[in-house]
């Protein structure tokens, strides 16, 4: 089907500044293939159903809106206290000097551009492949654009229980940067890997992470999208889960004029578990969109989606979440909750929770709520001597608790709690 003229010209304008993928090696072929797919779908437009609550214009525009640099001095950098292996990207470009030496038992890490030239490579079966599987039944053109034009990223393969988390730090040093990063992760059978991500990354950040979790493997992911306000981000995670595997991803977002986080998970092996959670706090000119699509295509799998948003002062929160249970995916246990706490009357939460079930022996539940602080609870706390502002913060953190509990590491969960508390503290009137 031919693309409508508007979409065609928007795509052409966007592609103008980007250098065409090189053909030849496996990466070049995957990128050319992605470009073909992109040309057939065009870029998201404000009228698209999947972009009903979020205006994609700033994410698809030919050039990014500049974003002021921001480095808060009142907090230690995220994950700094942990024993981890650190990989640094500056405005979307890997910085080897600032990164740790890659030498960890059971772990292989390569740069996308280099590995992409190899004759054969394990990532060949994943790069762009999981992304392409995630295009059905809903198109995600920003991810395809990423696959076609990513210039950097890492390929991470865990072959055993990796002793330290791998941290991907995204620094932002150029007010006009437009970064496209693509990571591929393979957790081999029985292996375990934790990925941490943090930092503003760029004025505009398009990131795709494809994660292939083999049978009985575990993948843990904690990311924070920092306090820098002006950056814009469109991120995608595409994950495929083998039998008895575990996938856990948690995202904390504090501030940001535009964030769209899409998570697309396919449970393809029996008894697999997928947990996705998010806690976000928005103040003022803030737009945050969580779009999640979980497909159950195996027996006895469990999935959980727990998304909590605290919004105030004009902030907008969006949640689009779907559980799709394919024929034969019996004994599916699917849970989805999306809630917002509106701290004043100027904030809004738009939610579209969906279930689509083609198997008869499943237990799926979903719920979405939007509400203000519970006055009765507030009075109870105050009557014990806790001042109004402190009591409000306590209830706000309590509201976020269910999402934070999804983090496996107590140490990281405590740190996230402290940072959320500090965020609230900075806003006390």
């Amino acid at each position, binding site marked *: 089907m031919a693309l409508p003229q508007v979409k065609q010209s928007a795509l052409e304008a966007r592609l103008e500044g980007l250098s065409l993928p090189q053909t030849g090696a496996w990466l070049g072929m995957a990128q050319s293939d992605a470009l073909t797919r992109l040309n057939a779908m065009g870029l998201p437009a404000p009228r698209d159903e999947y972009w009903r609550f979020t205006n994609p214009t700033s994410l698809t525009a030919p050039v990014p809106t500049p974003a002021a640099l921001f480095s808060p001095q009142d907090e230690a950098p995220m994950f700094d206290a942990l024993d981890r292996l650190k990989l640094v990207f500056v405005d979307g470009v890997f910085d080897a000097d600032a990164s740790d030496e890659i030498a960890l038992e059971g772990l292989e890490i390569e740069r996308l551009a280099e590995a992409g030239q190899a004759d054969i490579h394990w990532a060949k079966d994943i790069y762009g492949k999981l992304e392409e599987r995630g295009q059905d039944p809903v198109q995600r053109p920003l991810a395809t654009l990423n696959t076609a034009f990513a210039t950097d990223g890492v390929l991470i393969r865990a072959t055993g229980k990796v002793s330290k988390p791998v941290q991907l730090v995204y620094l932002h040093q150029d007010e006009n940067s437009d970064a496209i990063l693509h990571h591929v992760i393979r957790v081999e059978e029985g292996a375990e890997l934790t990925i941490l991500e943090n930092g503003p990354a760029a004025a505009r950040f398009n990131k795709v992470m494809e994660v292939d979790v083999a049978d009985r493997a575990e993948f843990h992911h904690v990311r924070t999208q920092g306090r820098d306000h002006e950056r814009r981000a469109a991120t995608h995670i595409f994950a495929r889960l083998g039998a008895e595997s575990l996938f856990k991803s948690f995202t904390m977002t504090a501030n940001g004029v535009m964030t769209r986080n899409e998570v697309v998970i396919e449970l393809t092996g029996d008894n697999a578990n997928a947990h996705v959670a998010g806690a976000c706090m928005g103040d003022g000119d803030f737009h945050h969109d969580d779009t999640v699509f979980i497909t159950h295509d195996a027996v006895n799998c469990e999935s959980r989606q727990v998304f909590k948003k605290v919004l105030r002062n004009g902030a907008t929160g969006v949640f689009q979440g779907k559980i799709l249970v394919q024929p034969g995916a019996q004994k599916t246990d699917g849970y989805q909750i999306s809630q917002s706490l509106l701290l004043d009357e100027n904030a809004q939460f738009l939610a579209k929770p969906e279930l689509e079930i083609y198997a008869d022996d499943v237990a799926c539940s979903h719920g979405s709520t939007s509400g203000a602080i519970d006055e009765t609870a507030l009075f109870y706390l105050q009557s014990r001597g806790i001042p109004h502002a402190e009591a409000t913060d306590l*209830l706000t953190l309590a509201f976020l608790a269910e999402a934070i509990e999804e983090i496996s590491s107590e140490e990281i969960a405590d740190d996230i709690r402290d940072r959320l508390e500090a965020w609230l503290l900075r806003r006390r009137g």
Partner: protein
Amino acid sequence: MLEIKNLHVKLEEEDKAILKGLDLTVEAGKVHAIMGPNGSGKSTLSYVLSGKDGYEVTDGSAELLGEDLLELEPEERAAAGLFLAFQYPVEIPGVGNMTFLRTAVNAQRKARGEEELSAADFLKIIRAKAKSLKIDADMLKRPVNTGFSGGEKKRNEILQMAMLEPKMCILDETDSGLDVDAMKLVAEGVNALRDEGRGFLVITHYQRLLDHIKPDVVHILADGKIVKTGGPELALEVENNGYADILAEVA
């Protein structure tokens, strides 16, 4: 200690008067009991004193140790020494009972210009007090009142009172929903706090609680006013004959 004069209260949202000229003085070291028919305004009195929204004081005054209570925020009233054990304690999912209590104790200490309690000191004190109320470690860890049984909630109220050491304690039907043993525990908890510098206002429907917490004075509240005041024998009279005789007598 607590001095209430000619208190008139109506609902903020509608034109409904609930307290209609209530006078009451509780002296330090004394236990006063309030009894009265359902809907007579007992809980409303306790809420208005502790500063809950939704009520409007149209006349009268309420002072705690000479300080105008009605001018203060709820948390300031607490810091000034007022405590209300709720008729219906509130469940707060996501806030741990222990965190809640430590935040409360330290907020009050801070408001009074006192040093905050260290985590270790706090733990030592709360463990001892919880033990005497038969509140186990698990209940301390769980979210505030969440999933607690009726009796557990009431014991948790008394634990809070014991930790906060208020000067003026109001207990709104703390006995309702308690089994005989729990009632004894609660009464012991209250009695342990009785001293010369502390006043109590015990709202109840039953003589049973007053067998354990011996009141000095008993008031009957009906239709928003104290209609009769007497000694402990007044509670016995209510227990035996109900309110009809008393109300007829004062009508």
